[in-house]
C-alpha cells in the first residue's frame, strides 16, 4: 500500500505542475519552458508572505502568495508574451527560455541560495498519518492529493461551463475566428498565463511546505514536462494520466529495480511516446501538426 501512496503523491505533484503546461499550450500553442521557474516564484512568494509578520495567520500568507502568483502570471503575459503575438511559436518558446534563465538568477539574488522552510515560519505541523496498515504519508502530502483533485475538478468545470473557459477553448481552436466573434484574445491569453502560474505556484508551495525550498525546485518543473507530453499537451485529462504513468514507473523502478533509472525513465517514456504517438495519449493529432 505504501507504494500506491507514493505513486499517488508523486503523481499529484506532476499533475499539478503539468496542468500549467497544458493550459497555456491549449489556449495559445506556446510551450512555456519557464513553467518550472514560475512555480519556483510562487513558492518563494509564499516564503516572503510567511516571513511577513503582519499577516497574522498561515491562511492569509498562503492566500496572499496565491494572489501574487496569479498576478505574476498575468504580468508575464502583459509585459512580455503579449509582444510575441504574431511572432512565430518558436520565438515565443525561446522567450520563455530566456524568462526562465532570468527568473533563476533573480531568485538567488532576491532570496539567496539558502534552504528555507516556509512551514516552520508559518508554524504548520506536518505529522505522519497512517492511512492504511503500514502505509503512511505526511499531512501536507495528503493535502497535496486533495488539492490536485480539487484543482482539476475546478479546471474541468471552468473549461466546460464557465464563460471564460468557453472563450479559452474557442481561442485554442481558432484564435482568428474567436477574435472575429468578439473574444478579447489578450484577456484570454493573460488569464491562461495567470491560471497556469497559479496552479504551478500551488504545486511549488505545497512542495516547499512539505520538504523545504531552495532553487533546485525548478528542476521538478522540468520533470513534470514529460508527463504533460505523454498525456497530450492539449488535454487536461491526459496530464493526469501521463503523470500517473510517469510516477508509477519511477516509484516501481526505485522499489524493485535501480533507483537511478527513475531519473531517466520519464524521458525514455517520452521518447517512446514521441515515436509511437507524437501527439500523446489524449492529445489532438492536428493540433500537434501545427507545431
Amino acid at each position: 500500500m505504501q507504494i500506491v501512496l507514493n505513486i499517488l503523491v508523486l503523481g499529484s505533484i506532476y499533475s499539478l505542475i503539468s496542468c500549467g503546461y497544458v493550459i497555456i499550450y491549449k489556449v495559445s500553442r506556446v510551450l512555456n519552458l519557464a513553467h518550472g521557474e514560475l512555480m519556483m516564484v510562487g513558492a518563494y512568494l509564499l516564503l516572503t508572505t510567511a516571513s511577513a509578520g503582519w499577516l497574522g495567520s498561515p491562511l492569509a500568507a498562503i492566500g496572499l502568495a496565491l494572489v501574487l502568483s496569479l498576478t505574476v502570471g498575468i504580468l508575464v503575459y502583459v509585459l512580455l508574451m503579449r509582444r510575441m503575438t504574431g511572432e512565430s511559436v518558436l520565438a515565443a518558446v525561446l522567450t520563455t527560455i530566456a524568462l526562465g534563465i532570468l527568473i533563476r538568477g533573480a531568485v538567488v539574488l532576491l532570496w539567496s541560495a539558502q534552504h528555507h522552510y516556509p512551514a516552520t515560519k508559518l508554524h504548520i505541523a506536518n505529522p505522519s498519518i497512517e492511512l492504511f496498515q503500514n502505509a503512511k504519508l505526511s499531512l501536507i502530502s495528503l493535502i497535496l492529493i486533495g488539492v490536485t483533485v480539487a484543482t482539476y475538478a475546478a479546471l474541468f468545470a471552468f473549461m466546460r461551463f464557465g464563460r471564460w473557459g468557453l472563450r479559452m477553448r474557442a481561442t485554442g481552436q481558432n484564435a482568428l475566428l474567436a477574435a472575429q466573434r468578439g473574444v478579447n484574445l489578450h484577456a484570454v491569453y493573460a488569464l491562461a498565463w495567470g491560471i497556469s502560474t497559479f496552479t504551478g505556484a500551488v504545486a511549488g508551495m505545497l512542495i516547499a511546505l512539505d520538504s523545504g525550498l531552495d532553487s533546485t525546485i525548478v528542476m521538478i518543473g522540468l520533470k513534470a514536462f514529460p508527463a504533460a507530453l505523454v498525456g497530450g499537451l492539449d488535454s487536461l485529462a491526459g496530464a493526469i494520466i501521463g503523470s500517473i504513468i510517469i510516477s508509477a514507473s519511477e516509484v516501481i523502478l526505485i522499489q524493485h529495480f535501480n533507483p537511478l533509472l527513475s531519473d531517466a525513465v520519464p524521458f525514455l517514456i517520452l521518447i517512446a511516446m514521441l515515436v509511437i504517438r507524437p501527439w500523446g495519449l489524449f492529445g489532438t493529432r492536428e493540433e500537434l501538426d501545427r507545431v
Partner: protein
Amino acid sequence: MTIKTFAVAAAISASLSMTAAAQDVVIGLSGALTGPSAGSYAPAIEGIRLYVDKVNAGGGVAGRKIKLIILDDQGEASKGAANATKLISQDNVSLLINSSLSSTFAPMIAATGQAGIPLLFAASACPKEVYPPANPLLFCTTAFASKFDSQATLDFITKSGGNVSLGLVAMAIPISRSEIESAEGLATVKGMKVADKAIIPPPTPDYTPFATKLSAAGANWVYAWAPWVTQVRTFEGLRKIGWNGRYIAWAHLESESELARLKDPALYAIGANALFAQDLPVQREMQATAKAAGATYPASQMTEGWIAGMVLEAALGKAGPNADAKAIQAAMQSLSVDTKGLRGGPIEWTAANHFRTRQFYRIYRWAPTSSAIEVVQDWTAYDVK
C-alpha cells in the same frame, strides 16, 4: 587651483594609487555563487570575503592589503575555466581559490598548473591530488575528506552497539557515490550488514519512495554522505513513513540550524567543524563581523570560508612582503594554522600532504532534555598518511 596645479595633484594622486595597487596581493576566487548548488558554497564564499575585509581593515598582511576578486561560475565547468583564465591572465592573481562543484576542478587545475599558481580548494571537495603525495600547487582546507569521513562514521556506528543493518544514501553525483561505495566496502570489512543503498538523483520531487525502499530493506541505521538536501529529505522521508531507526549524516553548513529545526535525537551529524552551539570566541567574532557587514548568510554557515581566510592570512604572512605566486606556494608547502577551535586541531600542511596531517571528527545531535545541540562524541583524530 590652476589647471597646472590640478594636473600635478592628479598625477601625484594617480601615482600614489598605482603604488598602492601594486602593493596589493591579488587573490582570485571562482565559486558557485548562483546556480542549483549555490546553497553549499555561497555562504562559505561570503565567509572568505568577510575574513579578507577584516584583515584589510586591520592593515592587511605583511604590510599589504588583499584584493579578493570573486567570480561566479554557477558550478559549471566552462564558466570555471573562463574565470580561471581571466583571473590568471588579466588580473594577475597570485593565488586562486575554488569554491565550487567538482566539475570545475579539471579546467582550473589545468589553468593554474600551466601558470604555476597555487590553487586552494575551500568549501569544495578536496581532490585526490591534495592527499599524500600531494601535487605541489594544490591545497585544500575543506572539512570533509574522502574515505576518512566514512571510516569515522562507521567507527561511531560500531561503537553504538547492537545489530546494525545499515542503509546507505548518496546523491547521484560522482563524489557522493564513490564515498558511499567506499563506505559499503568498509562496512562489509567491519562485519556490518548492508541492508540497502539508495543513490538518489538530484532533481527528486519526493524522497519517500527512496525512504520506503530503505525502510523495507530493514535498515536500522542509515548513513548519508551527500549534499545536505539529499541527506535531510531522505531522513524526513523515512520519518514520514514511520521509520524509527538512527540516521547519521555529514554535518554540512546547514546542519546546525537543521538539527534545531528537526529536534530528532536519533539524527546525528558528523563533521570536522565546530558548531556554533559551542559559542567559541572566534564564533562570536564571526557573528559580530557578519552582523556588522549585513551578511546575506548566517555566520554559522560561514565556518568553511572563515577557516580558508585564516589559512590564506597565514600563508601570505609567511610568504612575507612583496611575495609572488611562487613565494606563496613555497610558504604553503609547510604551514600550521591554529583554527581557534573551529576544527579539532590545527591545519598542518607538509610538502607531501596538502590536505592536513590529522583529521578530527565530532558528532552532534539534538538533545530533547536540554533542548539544545549536544556533543555525542568529542573530537576524534585520524592520521592522514
